[in-house]
């Protein structure tokens, strides 16, 4: 009896309709929170925090580069895990989330690469340095591109999603290998300033706004993911009666 109830809950969780309706309520709050976090973090980091002793003010790019990198990498895992859940439990919503995660992750990886390159110029004198960390980010971008491109190989939506999920999982195994290659290679790139096991090597005055920005970027990622998924739901479920009701009740929405 209990088991049945649990499964109902689980499968209800996977219903696009449930997702759409639930997010309808929470979306405005998430948007406000994201905006607040990002603005607060940026003002703090760009205007209030002191500059780095060696790098000067260009160090402030860290408040964009690091959060983007962190979320871009996490986003790949989110994409792969959504794919895995979709493959194992055949949950359509999970596949929709995976599909939405791809362009967002790719865009954030792009931001990380560009901000990293811009940061490199005043710091190391070159826009691009082929060290392991930057190279890993570039490889991550291509991993994202691969998942996005694979979608177009299959005319059948279901097959495209399953294939994308398989590819994401294969890439997911590769990601820690790439990450680990940072340890193996002597690199020019700064060692990770945030080590979750030890004290950060940055001054707390500079570290705190970074944490705010990272949380803000995660919040932004969730926002974007929900927005993309909602659009995907409407696109795919256009035949469903709940969708038709929804649309006819709100003529010419924003």
């Amino acid at each position, binding site marked *: 009896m209990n088991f049945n109830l649990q499964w109902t809950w689980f499968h209800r969780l996977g219903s696009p309709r449930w997702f759409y309706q639930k997010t309808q309520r929470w979306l405005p709050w998430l948007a406000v929170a994201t905006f607040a976090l990002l603005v607060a973090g940026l003002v703090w980091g760009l205007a209030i925090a002191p500059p780095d002793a060696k790098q000067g003010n260009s160090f402030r790019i860290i408040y964009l580069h690091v959060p983007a990198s962190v979320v871009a990498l996490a986003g790949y895992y989110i994409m792969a895990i959504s794919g895995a859940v979709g493959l194992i439990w055949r949950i359509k919503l999970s596949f929709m989330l995976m599909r939405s995660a791809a362009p967002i992750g790719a865009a954030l990886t792009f931001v990380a690469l560009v901000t990293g390159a811009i940061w490199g110029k005043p710091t190391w004198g070159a826009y691009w340095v082929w060290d392991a960390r930057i190279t890993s980010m570039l490889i991550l971008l291509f991993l994202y591109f*691969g998942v996005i*491109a694979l979608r177009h*190989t299959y005319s059948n939506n279901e097959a495209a999603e*399953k*294939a994308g999920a398989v590819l994401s999982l*294969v890439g997911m*195994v590769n990601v820690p290998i*790439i990450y680990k290659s940072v340890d*193996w290679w002597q690199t020019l790139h700064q060692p990770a300033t945030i080590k979750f096991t030890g004290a950060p090597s940055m001054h707390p005055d500079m570290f705190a706004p970074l944490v705010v920005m990272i949380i803000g970027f995660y919040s932004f990622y969730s926002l974007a993911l929900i927005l993309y998924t909602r659009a995907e739901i409407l696109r795919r479920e256009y035949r469903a009666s709940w969708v038709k009701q929804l649309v006819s009740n709100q003529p010419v929405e924003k």
Partner: protein
Amino acid sequence: MANNLSGGFKAFLYRDLLLAIRDRGDLSKPLMFFLLVAVMVPLAIAPEANKLSAIAPGLIWILALLATLLSIERLFSEDYADGSLEQLLISPNMLMMPILGKITAHWLVIGLPLTLLSPVIAIWFSLPISAMVPMMLSLALGTAVLSLVGAVGAALTLPRQGGVLLALLVMPLYMPVLIFGSATIQSAVDGLNWLAPLAMLAAFLAIATVLCPLAISAGLRIAKNG
């Protein structure tokens, strides 16, 4: 049951080897490519020994990578086209074994000859003799990984074949192999410990042997069933 387990492997190994040998053209094309591009490099860049030997480790590996990419697409395409893939999918054998058999055949036909040809390239690029053995070991292990990972891409792109997508999918996955493969050769040239990066290649081979067939069989089923 035990019969089926290894039977599938050997059967498809012999089958693909036989098919490859019968069609000599396919067998030699990637190797010709390997040699031809190697000839182009001194013509395009510089014939000086010191310049060539500086880029040799990475270049040899890139050539091996490209040669593998050229050939891997056809791993499943003929079987997909003539229906034998469908037969494979509904057979009672574990899918892993025939897949590993086919990939082993591919390595024997592409990766191994590449490895055996590599000393020629090494001499052309003035690579020191001390780097020969590490180079061949890295190529032997690495091309096996390239075949395994390439097969994943081949399986996933079956419905619409056309080299570029396969390359795009598979290149990011190839990069760690490329890194450690060329590092093995470079370490040997520099007199450092080349067993370390070689061990990484061996680790990659172990992981790939276990995980790639899973992904490949999933990809094959998706391609067939839609």
